[in-house]
């Protein structure tokens, strides 16, 4: 490298010989070539590590049979569903492997005499933006269910600890399953994230870095297996994962492996102590960010519209929460939340059944394990009520008894048309 003095002494300057300019052009060219060759592209289902989302997607994609009903929602839905099944089946439930509601299926069959298969796609921290991607990218065609039961709570729209919709684990995993750019303004609203996104669009090496790193790691791992093979271990993979979590608590914060999140059967008179998580929610609800609220409501609207276009009926459930948690929100905000849910459901009334579980007043603090999540007893109560609502709701029952052939045929037609357009647009070889 040359010193400032050396540079200052030079006279001739030729921009075409600028190393940085030539290198930048070279980098852009290389990046474009890699993009053209789709260098190092992986399948969306090639996950670098496992999370709640990857487990749910894997099983959903691999299962040959499509479910009649899909549950969507955050931990508000996930916790009662899995803990109720632990009680109902009288065994420990592994949250990473159990993606159904056996309790609901049995209760629904008892009530209506009709068998339905369910798939639980509720995930911890799932926002409406995530649920919208699940609906748009996965619940379609051969895999489109007849009914979606979507449980929402105020946190889903008012979480101020969430940096942006792009920051969630479900988004990071699901974003590779389809084109989400039509909602880019809502998904990456902050300028730094937006800049990062635009850089990713401009430079293949940046935009596809997770896939390129995934491939690079495979190569390095293969080399390491030869040069420095992993010794025979006494610990199980779960134990090792536990050690890793202890050593690096911030590394892959969303990673979940088998047997790491278990729901055990509980006795009604010996439940764990009520957890006071008011402090956490005080932080989450602090200062309403209208931008976040409106953005997430838009995604909820997208879900309802997408479902309608695919002849999927939606049962939108305003989930119950404790009064303690409800009182963290001002009356105005609470009203805004309730009103917007009602308005959205009403705008899609042909394909949406709205049930306000909070307003029904059927839940007491004793039904909850903390200020927000129902325990297995409360979960059973919730599912009983949902069964009751669905069994008496004609559009829902009609959707469940239909064979979805119309929707499937429509999907096939669209796919064929898209393929024909692509063929026409492709240059002749």
């Amino acid at each position: 490298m040359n010193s400032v003095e050396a540079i200052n002494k030079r006279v001739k300057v030729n921009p075409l010989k600028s190393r940085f300019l030539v290198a930048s052009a070279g980098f852009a060219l290389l990046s474009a070539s890699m993009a053209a060759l789709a260098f190092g592209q992986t399948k969306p289902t090639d996950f670098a590590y496992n999370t709640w989302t990857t487990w749910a997607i894997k099983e959903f994609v691999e299962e040959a049979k499509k479910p009649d009903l899909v549950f969507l929602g955050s931990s508000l839905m996930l916790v009662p569903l899995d803990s109720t099944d632990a009680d109902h089946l009288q065994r420990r439930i592994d949250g990473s492997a159990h993606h159904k509601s056996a309790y609901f299926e049995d209760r629904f069959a008892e009530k209506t005499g009709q068998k339905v298969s369910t798939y639980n796609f509720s995930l911890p921290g799932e926002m409406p933006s995530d649920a919208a991607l699940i609906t748009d990218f996965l619940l379609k065609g051969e895999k489109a269910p007849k009914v979606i039961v979507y449980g929402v709570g105020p946190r889903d729209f008012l979480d101020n600890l969430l940096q942006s919709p792009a920051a969630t684990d479900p988004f990071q995993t699901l974003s590779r399953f389809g084109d989400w750019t039509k909602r880019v303004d809502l998904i990456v609203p902050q300028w730094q994230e937006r800049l990062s996104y635009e850089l990713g669009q401009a430079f293949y090496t940046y935009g596809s870095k997770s896939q390129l790193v995934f491939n690079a790691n495979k190569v390095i791992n293969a080399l390491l297996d030869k040069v420095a093979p992993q010794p025979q271990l006494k610990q199980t993979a779960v134990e090792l994962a536990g050690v890793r979590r202890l050593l690096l608590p911030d590394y892959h914060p969303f990673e979940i492996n088998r047997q790491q999140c278990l729901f055990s059967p509980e006795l009604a008179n010996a439940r764990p102590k009520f957890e006071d998580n008011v402090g956490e929610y005080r932080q989450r609800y602090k200062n309403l960010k209208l931008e976040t609220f409106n953005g997430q409501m838009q995604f909820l609207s997208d879900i309802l519209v997408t479902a309608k276009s695919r002849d999927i009926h939606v049962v939108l459930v305003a989930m119950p929460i404790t009064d303690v948690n409800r009182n963290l929100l001002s009356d105005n905000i609470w009203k805004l939340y309730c009103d917007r849910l009602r308005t959205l459901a009403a705008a899609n009334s042909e394909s949406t059944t709205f049930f306000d579980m909070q307003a029904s007043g059927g839940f007491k603090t004793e039904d909850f394990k903390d200020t927000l999540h129902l325990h297995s007893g409360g979960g059973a109560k919730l599912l009983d009520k949902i069964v009751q609502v669905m069994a008496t709701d004609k559009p829902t029952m009609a959707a469940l008894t239909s064979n979805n052939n119309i929707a499937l045929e429509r999907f096939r037609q669209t796919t064929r048309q898209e393929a024909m357009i692509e063929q026409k647009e492709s240059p002749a070889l």
Partner: protein
Amino acid sequence: MLFNSLQYLVFLPVVFLLYWISPQRLRVPLLLVASYVFYCTWRPIYGLLIFGLTMATFLLVPFIHKAATAASGKHIFTPKVWLGIAVAVNLLCLAIFKYAYFAVGSVKQGLSMAGIDWKEPHLHIILPLGISFFVFEFIHYAVEVYRGKPLVKNFSALALFAAFFPTQIAGPIKRYQDFVPQLTEKLKFKWEYVDEGMQMILMGLAKKVLLADNLAMVVQAGFAHPENFSSVDLWLITYAFAFQIFFDFAGYTDVARGSALLFGYKVPINFNLPYMAANVADFWNRWHISLSTWLRDYLFIPLGGSRVSRPLVYRNLFITMALGGLWHGAAMHFLAWGAYQGIVLILHREYVRVLEAVGINKKLAASPTAAKLYHWFSIVATFHIVCIGWVLFRADDMKTAGAMILKLVQAPVDLLHFSASQLAILQIRDPIIFPALLLLLPGLMISQPIIAWLNDKKFYQSPPWAVQVSLMVALMCLLTIFSPDSSPRFIYFQF
């Protein structure tokens, strides 16, 4: 604002463009505004602190000059007193913001040992970024004026000297005689500024993002839970930290120097292959050079330096290094690290005396092969002595440092019946840096003599054009692919 952030990716080109399209007379004010914007993006209120200290220094230092040039007895204070005031104002600021917690904690601990329960006052002080660096620059300025060097008469020049954004947060600690004259040079834009500057920036980011950040994961795990690792693992982790802190700080310095060069400014180097040092004194000539020369000029020499009796020289060495350790952070383990450096420097001087007395130097001079072998042995030994010091530096507290060092010294015994299967770093395959350490560390160690050899051959002064372009393309690719979503702060930002 971090160098390895998207904010900086926008900030730097904007300032660069504005700078070169501005007329000469606006360039210093522009850089000054940009530097304050850079500082205030972190915590705007602390912009007042750096401004206040600049103003205080600007107003106080001329009194040193006036007192020195005034006829005897005509001035209210002697130059020494004015120097004392200027230095005290700066040190007081540093003491309040950096050492108040440490002082209160130490007093409380001392009193509790004496059986006195003292309810300490609740302090809520956030350490201002870069305070240790700009305070040292101000003290250097005051001392140099005291020693007869010229005053800086332009406030903007002094303000930019301290606040210059490339060096503002973690140095290198500049000398005003080198920096301030550059402000008045009439520079014309040259592509070479961009070429050299961007090459340095890319190299610096690569050191930080590709090497230091990855090594940080192993280091964090090892230092947080040494009980989970064998003594051999801990040596590897200590080596990893040696390279982590080097690449982190050298990477930062490269970005700082490269950023400065984009504006045609030269700032001093901070590193010169420190792990090729053949003894600890040599190490300090190669490691954090701008700090070690500062400590030499403004602490060691004023204490008497080497021109006093041997015990006093050793006292001076010890005090200088111990205070140098404390400069890094207000904690006992930093003080211990500094004291350790002082002790090993003293031992090194004694060792040299013994060698000279025995006449080994003459014998080595007579045999080039033996001299070479001894030289390489010295490099390896120095590296390990430095590594032991890094344990004190990196550990969260003295207890952890002690536990780690105890385990490290067991390594020779453990190695007698050791097999690779006992290595904990091989058991963890993700993150991949754990098993990769066995490949990476030898590579990094071998790279040091290779770089030294290339330096000797003056390769870096005129590498082929195509090599430089290819290197930049490769770095751009690697950085865009392997840059983590969130990179940790530079280690030296906390000092």
